[in-house]
C-alpha cells in the first residue's frame, strides 16, 4: 500500500490540512508557553509545554511501560465491549420485548459516574485487569449498541421481502444479509468508543492499580511532578488518535462497500 493510499484509507488526506493544523498547534503551544513563562500560572499547577516535552523524553521508559499496561486494558476492553454490544444489539433487533426492556437499563448504565462504580469493582474483582476491563467495556459499549442497531434498522425492507420469496430461513437472513449490513455501524460505534474508553481506563486505574498511565497520572500530582502527569495525558491522546486511525483502516479493509457509491449515477 503506497503512502497516499494509506493516507486515503486513514481518512486523513481529505478534510485535514496538515500545514494548517501544524501552524495552529504551534500557535496554541506558543501562547501556552508564553503564558506560563511570563508568570501567568504556577508551573506546579500548569507546566509549560517545554517541561512536558522534557518529561516525555526523560521519562520515556516509565511512560512506555505504563502505556503498555493501559493499552492492553483499552484494547481488550473495547473488544469485550464490541462483542457484548453486537450480541445485545442482535438480541434487541430480533426480539422487540428485549429491545423495549433494554433501553432504560442501557441508558441508566451510562449515567453511573465511574468514580462511584470503580471502587466497588475493585472490591469485587481485585486490583488486576478485570475491573478495568469492566469499566472500559461499560463506557464503550453504549455507542456501539446504538450504531449497530441503526445498522440493523437501515437494512432495506424490500431486501428482506426478496429473501422471503427465495424461502430463505429467518436465521440465514440474519447471518447473510442483516449482520453484514450492520457491520459498518459496529465500526462507527467502536470509533466513538475509543475516546471514552481511554478516559474510562484512567478512572479505573485511579480507583486501584499499581501501573498504567492513569496510575502514573494519579501518582505524579502529589509528588509535584505535574509535567509528568501532563506527559501521560499526551501519550493517552496520541494512543486514542492511533486507535481511531487503525479502526478507520480496518473499516476500509473489512467493509469497503460502505465507502463506495453503489454503482454509477445512471442506475
Amino acid at each position: 500500500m503506497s503512502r497516499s493510499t494509506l493516507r486515503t484509507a486513514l481518512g486523513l488526506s481529505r478534510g485535514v490540512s496538515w500545514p494548517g493544523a501544524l501552524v495552529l498547534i504551534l500557535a496554541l503551544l506558543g501562547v501556552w508557553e508564553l503564558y506560563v513563562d511570563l508568570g501567568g500560572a504556577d508551573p506546579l499547577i500548569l507546566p509549560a509545554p517545554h517541561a512536558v516535552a522534557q518529561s516525555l523524553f526523560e521519562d520515556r521508559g516509565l511512560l512506555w511501560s505504563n502505556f503498555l499496561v493501559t493499552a492492553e486494558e483499552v484494547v481488550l476492553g473495547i473488544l469485550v465491549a464490541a462483542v457484548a454490544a453486537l450480541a445485545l444489539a442482535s438480541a434487541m433487533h430480533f426480539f422487540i420485548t428485549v429491545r423495549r426492556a433494554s433501553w432504560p437499563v442501557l441508558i441508566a448504565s451510562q449515567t453511573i459516574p465511574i468514580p462511584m462504580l470503580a471502587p466497588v469493582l475493585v472490591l469485587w474483582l481485585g486490583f488486576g485487569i478485570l475491573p478495568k476491563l469492566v469499566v472500559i467495556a461499560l463506557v464503550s459499549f453504549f455507542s456501539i449498541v446504538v450504531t449497530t442497531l441503526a445498522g440493523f434498522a437501515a437494512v432495506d425492507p424490500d431486501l428482506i421481502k426478496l429473501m422471503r420469496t427465495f424461502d430463505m430461513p429467518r436465521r440465514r437472513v440474519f447471518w447473510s444479509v442483516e449482520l453484514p449490513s450492520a457491520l459498518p455501524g459496529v465500526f462507527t460505534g467502536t470509533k466513538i468508543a475509543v475516546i471514552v474508553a481511554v478516559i474510562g481506563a484512567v478512572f479505573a486505574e485511579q480507583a486501584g492499580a499499581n501501573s498504567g498511565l492513569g496510575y502514573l497520572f494519579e501518582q505524579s500530582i502529589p509528588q509535584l511532578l505535574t509535567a509528568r502527569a501532563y506527559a501521560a495525558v499526551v501519550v493517552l491522546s496520541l494512543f486514542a488518535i492511533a486507535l481511531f486511525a487503525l479502526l478507520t483502516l480496518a473499516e476500509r479493509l473489512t467493509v469497503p462497500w460502505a465507502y463506495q457509491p453503489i454503482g454509477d449515477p445512471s442506475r
Partner: protein
Amino acid sequence: MVAHVDMSASGAAPQTGERQGTGGVHVERVSRTFPSRTGEIHALDGVTLRAAPGEIVTVVGPSGCGKTTLLELICGLQAPDAGTVVSAPAALMPQRDLLLPWLSAIDNAALALRARGMGRDDARATAAPWLERFGLGEFERARPAELSGGMRQRVSFLRSLLAGKPVLALDEPFAALDAITRAEMQGWLAQVLTSEPRTVVLVTHDVEEAVVLGDRVVVMSARPGRVVCEVPVALARPRRRTDADVVALRERVLEALGMPA
C-alpha cells in the same frame, strides 16, 4: 443441466393449500386496503388477473395503482382483504437491483440457491454457466459497485430466475435504468424468456415496454387500482418498438389509460 431450477422440481416445494403448483396465477376479485394516518389507502379494488402457465402478462398503470401490492400478493408476501389469490410459487425481482454489495456477482446470482441450503461450491457451479450465458462471464468475481446498471439488473434477474419458481413477479425491473440501457434490457429479457419460459407477471409504467414484452397487457386505473381493460398482444417475436403493430397497440393502451396520443 440445472435440474433444480426447472419447473418440475420446484413443484415439489412445500405449498400451502391455496397455492397450487399449476404454474399459473389466479387473482380473483382481490381488494386490499392499508391503514394510513389520513384514513385508509384503497390500493386494490376487485382486481382479477390470470396468467396461464408460460404466459407473460404485463400490468401497466399510473403510479400508486397498487401494482407492487399486486405482486406481493402473488408472491405470498401479503394476504388480500377480499378475494382469492391462487398462484404457483413465485419469486420477486425488484425495481432496484438490491444486490448485496459485499458479494461478488456470482455469489449474488447464487443467493437464492444458497437460501435453499445449497453449498457454496455447488451454488457457484450452478450459477457460473448462467452468468456466461447472460454475458457476465468475465464479471463473476466483480462486486456490484464495479458493474454497470444493466449488468446489475441482469445479475438480479438471474438471482430470481435461479430461485427455481415457476412464476416470476417483476416489479418495474428496468425503471431505474437510462433509456438506452432499458431498451437493451427489454430485448434481452424477451430473448431469455423465449429460451427459458416462465409464467411472468411484469408491472411497469412504461406502455411501450408492456406491449413489447407481454402476451397480454392488463391496464389498471389510478388508486384504487381496478382493471380497466385487457389488451391481447398477438404479435410475433422479436418485436421492435417501431413496428407499426406495436405502435398501434401502444396507442390503444394509452387511450385506455385516458391519455390519447
